[in-house]
């Protein structure tokens, strides 16, 4: 019983953290910061997937969400502009 409650509370915290960082990534004008916020969001979803008993999904997510996707986005920012303008 205690374990289930712990898992549920942890899931709630992690998905809220992910939501907050998603919002920050959307409103952030500095795109490098936005990418970092987005990968923090991926990191918290990673823990959610692990707790929901999807280790296969988590393994793919850790490489793509935290490694490959930010790298591709960084390449894009480097080739275009760092600051979003109106």
């Amino acid at each position, binding site marked *: 019983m205690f374990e289930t409650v712990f898992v549920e509370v942890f899931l*709630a915290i992690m998905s809220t953290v992910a939501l907050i960082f998603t*919002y920050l990534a959307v409103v952030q004008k500095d795109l490098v910061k936005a990418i970092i916020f987005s990968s923090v969001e991926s990191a918290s979803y990673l823990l959610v997937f692990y707790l929901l008993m999807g*280790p*296969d999904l988590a393994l793919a997510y*850790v*490489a793509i969400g935290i*490694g490959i996707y930010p790298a591709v986005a960084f390449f894009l920012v480097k*080739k275009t502009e760092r600051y979003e303008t109106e």
Partner: protein
Amino acid sequence: MRAKTAVSLIVIIGSLLAISYAIAAQATGTIPQTDLRKLADFYAQNTLNSNDKFLWSASPEAVTAIVWDYRGFDTLFETSVFFLAIIACVAIFEVEMPRRSKNEKLAKQSHGLSIIVKVVTKIVGLIIICVSASIALHGQLTPGGGFQGGAALAVLPILFIMAMSRFALEDRRVNRNSMLIMRSLGLLGIGTTVILPLIIGLATHNPAYIMQNQIKPGALVSLPSSLADRMMGGSLWLLNLSEYLAVGAGFTLTFILLSLPESFFKKILESEKYSTH
């Protein structure tokens, strides 16, 4: 502007509270679920059930068994979509790769970040290779598989490009051509494993299905389920190995092409502009 922010915050917080209430009131059942659905029960019962070999896939990892055996064609077509995207990327960057001038070759050490970062990157690189290989090649035993392992491996070239330069990869023979060859070898491996049961069936005069792993009623062909007392899961290990090579090389190829500097493309575009007029 402020009203817009307030509205979006209210919408976000409102939906958060609504979803939280629904989950807390157990609208979706307990999370994580404690009881199995019928389909999940079927896989749990049959994946490693050596009493009924018409339904088993000789692997203790049900997810890999579903991905490459029970629902194998889904994964096959997913892989082909992924590699169509990679091929499109290679086709767009169909240019002659820039070569290093002699001065740059001499100044090799001065490229990139400090020596501490470079040494740490090399150590981490070794760890990444080991971890990704174990994720991919133990895919039939533990969580993970070819795609996960390949994606983990692809983090290595990113680190090398960031810490040193693209030329550090080229010094280690990781360039466009070698990655194209490795990717093609991986895809060829997947293709061969898919038609391997047919070849065995022709040789032993048995009917067989495409992408068959273990024996099925009316098709008594099966790929080896164990090798020297290690569980190999028949075709699962071969498919994981091929997918690992193909995905790792495919991602690396994309990163090498993406890391070409903008000035290089501008030069090409300008020379084309002058040649057409």
